[in-house]
């Protein structure tokens, strides 16, 4: 078989066995050259595009790195035990912390979750189980619109329909406003997570004599639970930093309060108030508050990631 690779004269007669011995024609050589230039051009384009997307990927993470770096530089010095245990000092006095604001944010997150999660998950379950119906399509569309609603609009509505009738600013009104913002997010993630539960699993439950609602709750919802938990945590981390709705609903509080019926402090509000104050000492506290808020969101995101990883793992009893 050495003659296959050997140089061959133009007059070389074909030999048996009939391997392809013909020289490449002019057309074939032209085609080969074209292929060569095409491949060369593709290599260049490839390198350029990889470079461009790599740059974009770096740029995408740059703001977070920059923000974190600046927050640590400007705020880390104010983070101490007092910051987590004391309430703010009057303007001009040194020391004090944001403990009441952290408690307030926690209360608001709990209130918002208590209001938003059951409705969001229930709506998502309905959308997943009744796909294609007019009502489901309408609900899905409206939920998407709600998702894009500016938070300040949500705040104004909460003020108009909750704060005004109740006659005062309350943590409850803030919780409901934030919960309403969670609903569309939770609805859509729940629907998506339930949709990826295989139909065969649903059929297996039905074939065992499970009723439709029991199939949905015990088998489908439970299988989709890690994904739904992730969605819920993402929604929580999104509303944890909301400020606009809180301006109209919970107002803020310089003192300890965990009551739903009173104005309450919240980290974003405290940051806002300190940032616009004329005292440098409060500015530093605002930076520290921002650092803590980002820390909370980061922890929630990590928890969400962890919940996703254990998806379809052993749920246990």
């Amino acid at each position, binding site marked *: 078989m050495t003659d296959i690779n050997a140089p061959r004269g133009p007059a070389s007669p074909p030999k048996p066995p009939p391997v392809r011995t013909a020289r490449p024609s002019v057309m074939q050589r032209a085609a080969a050259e074209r292929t060569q230039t095409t491949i060369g051009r593709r290599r260049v384009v490839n390198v350029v595009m990889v470079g461009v997307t790599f740059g974009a990927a770096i740029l995408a993470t740059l703001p977070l790195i920059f923000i974190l770096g600046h927050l640590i530089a400007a705020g880390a010095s104010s983070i101490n035990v007092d910051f987590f245990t004391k309430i703010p000092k009057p303007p001009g006095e040194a020391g004090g912390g944001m403990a009441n604001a952290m408690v307030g944010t926690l209360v608001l997150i709990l209130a918002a979750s208590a209001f938003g999660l059951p409705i969001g998950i229930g709506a998502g379950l309905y959308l997943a189980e009744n796909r294609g119906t007019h009502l489901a399509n309408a609900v899905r569309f409206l939920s998407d619109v709600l998702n894009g609603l500016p938070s300040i609009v949500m705040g104004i509505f909460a003020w108009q329909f909750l704060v005004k009738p109740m006659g005062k600013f309350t943590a409850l009104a803030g919780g409901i406003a934030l919960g309403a913002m969670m609903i569309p997010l939770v609805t859509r993630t729940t629907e998506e997570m339930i949709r990826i539960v*295989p139909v*065969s*699993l649903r*059929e*297996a*439950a*039905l*074939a*065992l*004599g*499970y*009723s439709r609602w*029991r199939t949905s709750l015990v*088998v489908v919802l*439970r*299988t989709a*639970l890690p994904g739904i938990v992730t969605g819920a945590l993402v929604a929580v981390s999104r509303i944890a930093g909301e400020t606009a709705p809180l301006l109209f609903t919970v107002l803020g509080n310089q003192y300890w309060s965990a009551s739903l019926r009173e104005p309450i402090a919240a980290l974003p509000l405290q940051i806002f108030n300190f940032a616009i104050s004329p005292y440098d000492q409060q500015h530093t506290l605002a930076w520290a508050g921002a650092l803590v808020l980002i820390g909370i969101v980061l922890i929630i995101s990590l928890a969400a990631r962890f919940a996703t990883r254990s998806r*379809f*793992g*052993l*749920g*246990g*009893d």
Partner: protein
Amino acid sequence: MATEPPRAPVPTAVTAPRPAASTERRRLEVASLSAYYGHAEIVRGVSITFRDREVTAIIGPSGCGKSTLLRCLNRMHETVPTAHVAGSVSLDGRDIYAKGVNAIEVRRHVGMVFQRPTPFPTMSIRDNVAAGLQILGRHKPSRTETDHIVEDALRRTALWDEVSNRLKDSAIGLSGGQQQRLCIARALATRPAVLLLDEPTASLDPISTQKVEELVYELRRDMTVVIVTHNMQQAARVSDRTAFMLTGELVEIAATNTLFTTPSDSRTEAYITGRFG
């Protein structure tokens, strides 16, 4: 619920003839059944009897309606939107499509195993087998009774020795063949009168297939088994009687031996000799 199942006397050999009387009892009677998806008629006026303590295989080319027919026997067909049924299916003389009959109740008596293993991923091995028992309301067996039923079901599916030391582990950790036998155990735990198998070995390797086939062969001792299969050798191995379906119609049903050696219909002959399908 009894912890030990009432069983027929064990035959000395698997090939031992079973009492003639039991084969005459009628378990499932299908009368001029048609099944539709929207306007498409998938099963066309099929009448067929599935006898007690027999394995009946349904064979036929893809799309002939054999799976749909099977899904009509436990009212799973109607769970698909636009699907509906005409005709009747009687279980021990009672029409399961009559007014007032609860589909959920029917499915407790007519178990089903699907083409692909469908263990519940969030449940342990034990809870998977016990899944059908958890919904019996006030008839729900106690914890100890449940443990006995689970063990019995796992023994019948020859899984007990393989999983008895990890009953609390996730069912997802089992191999495909084990998962499928687990699904059969889950269906058996509620002691159904009839077991429907929809190509139960389609996604299994030959060793697992053999185990499932042996199991199916054993099951006829105390229940009616209907198995849909693509594989004619499988039908020949496990069934007492075989039905051949084509384009939604029942072409012929006969003792498995007869159908595969001397089919009475030329279309059956063409199919089993591999001339189409």
